[in-house]
């Protein structure tokens, strides 16, 4: 469908000092998939999106949509943005305030040179698009009278009217309030699945990305650091960055005595004692291997309390703080290492435990949830 290879774009400030951008991104989209570029601000995700749209000219790389080269620095191809046949929803929605709802949605059908539509066709297509996003009743409203959510829908309808091959969504939900955002993302996903359009979604919100995407490319400092399905990204992070960026996590470093095969479980010597870890990829014996455990994968009980079903890793510590969050409880535990020093562990559990700050506690977690940060 869409393939991006070797995409390189560096901004250079006016005085000549190099700035951020994207430094060699490769990925390919499958037909009908919702693909997300996720990362903190300045990671290059928006630059990548804008390069695909044609709003930025990369310095190197190749972008192909279907069988058509949109950009190829070596062949000197650069299809102008108005010819790329790509729909886009902007962060600010970019609803033209001087046009009505109808005029906004009809614009792509009127200005494009490839297809000429009769006004009846335009009216029909616009109506379809607006109905699809639930704005059919607002068709003749001035666009300035729409609420934020409605503007968002109009932006979507406008991007759809031309039935583009590819839909780009640049943080489309970031300007909505929390409740509406959750509602809209479900709707968005449904719409995408119903229309079958291939879409690239840019966001810095990891929960949004996990909820909506078929696949996620996590970016950092201009590079894609991990690419995979949401579950894979969450459960099998391959770097400290991804582990920290997607959800909250506990990180421990340790030494591996003998090499571990890919997909095997091996014991890691850590300051907190030996831990059984899962190795997604093969690793040679070395020190300083990082492992992560998600807070919700850890069980907590008062030291000496009866043992229920437990993981094979176990740590002792002292409860430092407890925060009640309604659906879950968050505990901060000082785990004791051999030298008596501590390491803070975060634990999240739906069950309130009969413990209080200062109590001695035992943490346990399964070895398959203790992931060594090794690429598969």
């Amino acid at each position, binding site marked *: 469908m869409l393939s991006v290879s070797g995409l*390189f774009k*560096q*901004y*250079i*400030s*006016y005085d*000549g000092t*190099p*700035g951020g951008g994207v430094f060699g991104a490769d990925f390919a989209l499958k037909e009908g998939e919702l693909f997300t570029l996720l990362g903190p601000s300045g990671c290059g995700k928006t630059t990548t999106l804008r390069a695909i*749209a*044609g*709003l*930025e*000219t990369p*310095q*190197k790389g190749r972008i192909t949509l279907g069988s058509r080269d949109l950009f190829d620095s070596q062949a000197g191809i650069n299809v*102008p*943005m*108005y*010819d*790329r*046949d*790509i*729909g*886009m929803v*902007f*962060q*600010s*929605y*970019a609803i*033209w*305030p*001087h046009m009505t709802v109808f005029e906004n949605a009809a*614009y*792509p059908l009127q*200005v*494009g*040179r*490839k297809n000429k539509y009769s006004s009846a066709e335009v009216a029909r297509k616009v109506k379809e698009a607006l109905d699809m996003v639930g704005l059919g009743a607002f068709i003749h409203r001035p666009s300035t009278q729409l609420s934020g959510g409605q503007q968002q829908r109009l*932006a979507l309808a*406008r*991007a759809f009217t*031309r039935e583009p091959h590819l839909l*780009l969504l640049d943080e489309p939900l970031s300007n909505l309030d929390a409740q509406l955002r959750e509602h809209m993302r479900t709707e968005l996903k449904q719409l995408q699945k119903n229309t079958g359009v291939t879409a690239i979604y840019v966001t810095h919100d990891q929960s949004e990305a996990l909820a909506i995407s078929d696949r996620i490319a996590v970016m950092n400092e201009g590079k894609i650091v991990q690419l995979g399905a949401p579950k894979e990204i969450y459960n099998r992070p391959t770097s400290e960055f991804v582990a920290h960026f997607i959800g909250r996590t506990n990180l421990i470093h340790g030494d591996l005595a003998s090499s571990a095969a890919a997909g095997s479980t091996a014991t890691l010597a850590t300051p907190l004692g030996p831990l059984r870890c899962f190795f997604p990829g093969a690793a040679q014996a070395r020190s300083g291997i990082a492992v992560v455990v998600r807070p919700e994968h850890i069980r907590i009980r008062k030291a000496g309390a009866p043992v229920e079903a437990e993981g094979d890793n176990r740590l002792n510590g002292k409860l430092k703080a407890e925060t009640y969050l309604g659906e879950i409880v968050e505990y901060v535990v000082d785990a004791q290492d051999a030298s008596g020093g501590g390491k803070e562990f975060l634990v999240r559990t739906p069950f309130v435990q009969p413990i209080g700050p200062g109590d001695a506690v035992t943490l346990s977690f399964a070895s398959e949830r203790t992931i060594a940060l090794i690429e598969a």
Partner: protein
Amino acid sequence: MTTRPEVWDGSAAPMRMSVARRFGVSPLVGILIAVLLVFLVPPTIYLVQTSLFTTNFDGSFDQFTFRFYLELFTNPRFFNNLVNASIYAVGSAAVALTLGVLQAWIVERTNTPLRHYVFLISIVSLGIPSVLYTVSFLLILGKAGPLNLLLMELTGSTTPLLNVYSMWGMVIIEGIDFAPLTFLLLSSVFRSNDASFEEASMMSGAGIAQTFRHITLRLATPGIMALLILIFIRAFESFETPALVGRPGNVNVLTTEIYQSIQSTTPPNYGQAGAFSMALMLIVILLLVWYNRLSRHAEKYQTITGKGFRPRVMDLGKWRFLTAGLLVLLFIIMIGLPVGIVVYASFLPYYEGVTAKSFTQFTLANYAQVFNSQSFKSSIGNTLILGAATASLVCPFTALCAWLAARRHRGAWILDQLATMPLIFPAIVMGVAFLNVFLHMPFAFYGSLLSVILASMVRYLPYGMRYSYAGVLQVHRELEEASALSGARQATTFLRVVVPLITPALITCWLFVFLLSVKAVAAQILLVGPKSQVIAVTLFDLWENGQVTELAAMGVTWMSLMTVVSTIFYLIARRYGLSIR
């Protein structure tokens, strides 16, 4: 001034800027640059040439010489002019600022009654030609004027006490003339300060005066400083007041000396005018550099907070009637008296000061003369054409340039630079430069209305640029990108998205440039001929020819017309919530 692009994109070689690409331009930008160069290069070259050659009796260049520059240092008049110009500029900037700060604070930050009318009045006063304004103050402050008569009555003196044809006269008149503009610029500075700073001060126990001094004024200081330099520059290069007030009192400044070198010596001393012009330009350039630095600093200092920010006003309690009284007093001084005396003079058979007797002699003869005069009618017609043509050429052109520059089209930064370059030409210097261009044209062009329009267009390019840039910056970039991704080409995007969105800014631009170009004398006085007389120059000539009462009738007629124009301006600006700068 416009902002420089922070990021430059379009380089094929990463990490390093290729010089060729940096100077590479797109075809449209190239055409626009060429157009600007056609208008900017000849006057600049002729101005430099004028200062470096002796001129023959018939006006052609003769011999190359540095004499005129050397004379700058040996001629005591140059130094004297420089000192006068500096004192005058500092003085009038101080007067304008004092009046401006006072009004801006009262209007923006207090609950004084009547305060909103100050905007309307300030904008209306923009439509009064400077010549008329100056003349009206000469009538008020002159030895035969009401103020001197009153003082003589009070002190029992037999001779007038005040001589307006002096430095203080120039300073007061110019200062008052600039006050409305200063107010308009300052009100936005005051508006951009968060009221919570002042509220915090009041909560700490400070009174209104202390808060004003320690908080309001301190916060506005960088903005005020930048404005001070701006007014200083404008006063330094102003012509009307020094010509009408200073020259009779033997107080000469650089601009009047330039004018005199050309208009009052036979044959014209073009060389001296050229060298003086170059010196004046150099000073203005230095001042502008300083101004740019300061205003950039001022922007950093500005404390605009985020969304929904609206400064609240201070409750002055019963003191608000005092400030209202102050506003009324300022209104009387700045508008009431000058307009009043001009209206009064327009009904007199001949002007001889304000006496009881003269009220019995009221006549409409001056108005009859004005309305029957073919030259007045053509003068009005020419002026309206001049203003409309200047504004209609400048605004669309600068809108296109500003858009290209704001969207960082390749090479568009050159457009930005070129279009703001005329700022370094003081109006009278631009007159000298264009006079020489038109005199050397191979066909008859000098003295035509078109020639005056062209010079005026170049003069007001920077003002147009400023408005257009502000308008373009208000258009979110994504609005255009959405259009491009909808399949629209650049021209379609510009016409269907950008133009409709910047239309309010363009209308403001149009009216502002219109008002400025019909108000000024200095840029046009050396260029107009009998076929291209314009109101401001006609008023100037009438004053020099002593036809005060006809001047007054003409002035009143013109002011009425311009009041209509500027009221429309005000209403549009308010309708679209545009800032008037």
